[in-house]
């Protein structure tokens, strides 16, 4: 490998380019028309245009990306996350074009991409999945038998289901008959298919995932877990490692299960095995959820706590190198937390926001890392994911890491587009977060507090600042960017 094309954009493209440069590899960025002036373009040694703003015609355009690789003389492709990273067809097309795909083999991506095949693979490797049963026939008696087999509380779900339709929770035997009947009736109405199946209901689940790394010689190690329970609408907001309150015995079991799942499918390169965790202490149970066959957004927390650079590792594995360390060499040191900064307004239902970054300044200092793909003057549009940056902190303890995160976020100045930093600050200050009482439903339950408007006295102080006459106008370089918004900040301002 000599020259790597990074088939992505934004912060992850910038981060991969840095990793490649540190390994002495040349880099090629790709960009759409919307990203022509974006930081990830200048972060690489050269850049190739792959199409218009629409992702389907640019960052998802396999033909254009392969052409860019050929024309730039790249011999390898790093897919990043999202876009084509878990597309088996793309991995295969890279191989056919004689390019090294920096990730697992296409066959593994395809297998893990199917929920049922992934579940079967996990089961075959002896990894627990959420207990479930498909009734032998759909008579009320057979369904009731399935419920008893799975145990309480159970969830009766429509086979054809989605969106919570045809779903019933049963907590004891008395509730079964009525729940079966109403779930089936609702499923028939919604999907013209009354068939149901039964799954154990996981209450207050935590999302725990394990970072794994495999080489082409059959070696697989884990780099411990991450807790990603702070989510909303299935989107992760804060990730941390080590997972709070995970006992050594559960940690040993869950990491061993992840390695077994990875070995079972012949996993190569960096990947993540996701689990849901239920219960506390040594009695906590975990179940396989899915496997992500790529670098994760939240990989930096693992890097800070294990001291292992995952992009370097991906590149070395892709070059065929056997793993250069053993499981015994991997240890967790301190505590790391990542906050994802999104251009989303908590006061407006967390809807994506657009605007020009009239002022942008990232926090820095000991134990603070910011991975970003934006710069001052940039227009934040609607074409892609609204993530602006990731703020990652590392400290000796979780408490110290939370304090460091609080200070770092307060020092994160992004003016010109509404974002979720105020929301993140309130989230890390929540009593339940401080006390490590976190689960995937926490944000939804506390949304009222998290999305509260600022206090009136603070708003009055902000108003005084705005009207002080001491506030400067944005830099002239941003004039073009703001015109795209249909406005001109250079109209004279008067009070």
């Amino acid at each position, binding site marked *: 490998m000599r020259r790597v094309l990074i088939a992505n954009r934004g912060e992850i493209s910038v981060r991969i380019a840095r990793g490649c440069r540190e390994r002495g590899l040349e880099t090629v960025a790709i960009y759409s028309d919307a990203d022509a002036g974006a930081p990830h373009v200048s972060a690489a040694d050269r850049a190739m245009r792959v199409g218009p703003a629409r992702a389907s015609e640019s960052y998802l355009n396999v033909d254009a990306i392969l052409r860019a690789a050929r024309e730039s003389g790249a011999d390898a492709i790093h897919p990043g996350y999202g876009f084509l990273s878990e597309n088996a067809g793309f991995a295969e097309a890279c191989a056919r074009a004689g390019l090294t795909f920096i990730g697992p083999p296409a066959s593994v991506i395809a297998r893990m991409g199917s929920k049922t095949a992934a579940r079967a693979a996990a089961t075959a490797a002896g990894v627990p999945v959420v207990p479930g049963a498909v009734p032998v026939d759909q008579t009320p008696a057979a369904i009731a038998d399935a419920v008893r087999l799975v145990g309480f509380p159970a969830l009766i779900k429509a086979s054809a289901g989605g969106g919570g339709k045809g779903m019933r929770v049963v907590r004891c035997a008395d509730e079964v008959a009525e729940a079966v009947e109403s779930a089936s009736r609702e499923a028939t109405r919604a999907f013209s298919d009354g068939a149901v199946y039964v799954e154990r209901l996981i209450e207050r689940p935590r999302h725990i995932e394990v970072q794994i790394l495999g080489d082409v010689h059959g070696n697989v190690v884990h780099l411990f877990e991450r807790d990603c329970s702070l989510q909303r609408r299935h989107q992760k907001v804060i990730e941390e490692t080590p997972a709070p309150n995970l006992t050594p015995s559960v940690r040993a079991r869950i990491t061993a299960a992840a390695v077994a799942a990875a070995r079972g499918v012949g996993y190569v390169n960096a990947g993540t095995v996701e689990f849901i965790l239920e219960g506390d202490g040594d009695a906590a149970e975990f179940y396989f959820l899915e496997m992500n066959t790529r670098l994760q957004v939240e990989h930096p927390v693992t890097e800070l706590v294990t001291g292992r650079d995952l992009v370097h590792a991906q590149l070395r594995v892709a070059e065929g190198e056997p793993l250069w360390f053993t499981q015994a060499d991997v240890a967790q040191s301190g505590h790391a937390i990542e906050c994802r900064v999104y251009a989303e307004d908590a006061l407006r239902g967390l809807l994506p926001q657009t605007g020009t970054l009239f002022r942008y300044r990232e926090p820095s200092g000991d134990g603070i890392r910011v991975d970003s793909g934006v710069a001052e003057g940039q227009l934040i549009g609607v074409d892609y994911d609204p993530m602006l940056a990731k703020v990652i902190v590392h400290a000796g303890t979780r408490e110290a890491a939370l304090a460091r995160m609080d200070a770092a976020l307060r020092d994160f100045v992004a003016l010109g587009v509404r974002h979720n930093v105020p929301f993140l600050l309130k989230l890390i200050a929540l009593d339940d977060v401080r006390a490590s009482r976190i689960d995937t439903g926490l944000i939804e339950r506390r949304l009222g507090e998290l999305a509260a408007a600022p206090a009136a006295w603070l708003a009055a*102080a902000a108003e005084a600042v*705005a009207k002080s006459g001491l506030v400067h106008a944005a830099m002239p370089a941003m004039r073009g960017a703001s015109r795209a918004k249909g406005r001109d900040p250079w109209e004279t301002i008067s009070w």
Partner: protein
Amino acid sequence: MVTPNWIVTRRDEGRLQVSDGTRTLSADAVIGGGSAWVWLDGQLFEIPIERRGGRARGGHDEEALTPQMSAKVIRVLVEPGQAVAAGDTLVVLEAMKMEMPIRAPRAGTVTAVNCAEGELVTPDGPVVVLSL
């Protein structure tokens, strides 16, 4: 309630200090896009500012049509001076892969079209103004 008197001073380039005698906070602020953006005590404020020569909008005989969220303009179907009927689609926006038409709430005449195809629009300003 007595409104506290906030005194604002400059600390360094771009950074300000605001104090009411008991509390002293540092603030980052910039003017852009017709607003003052203020970062203060972990909270973000976007405060619209008046602009000289700014056109008054949304009078009682006017209706300013503003999008619900930031979006991209994919079609502009009217031009100033054009008469429209209630329910006519004036502009089609797209955000998060969904199309959202902006329709005339009542019959009237288009007095301003503040957007063009391909541009981004935000909830902060009207995309079309109708006189009724």
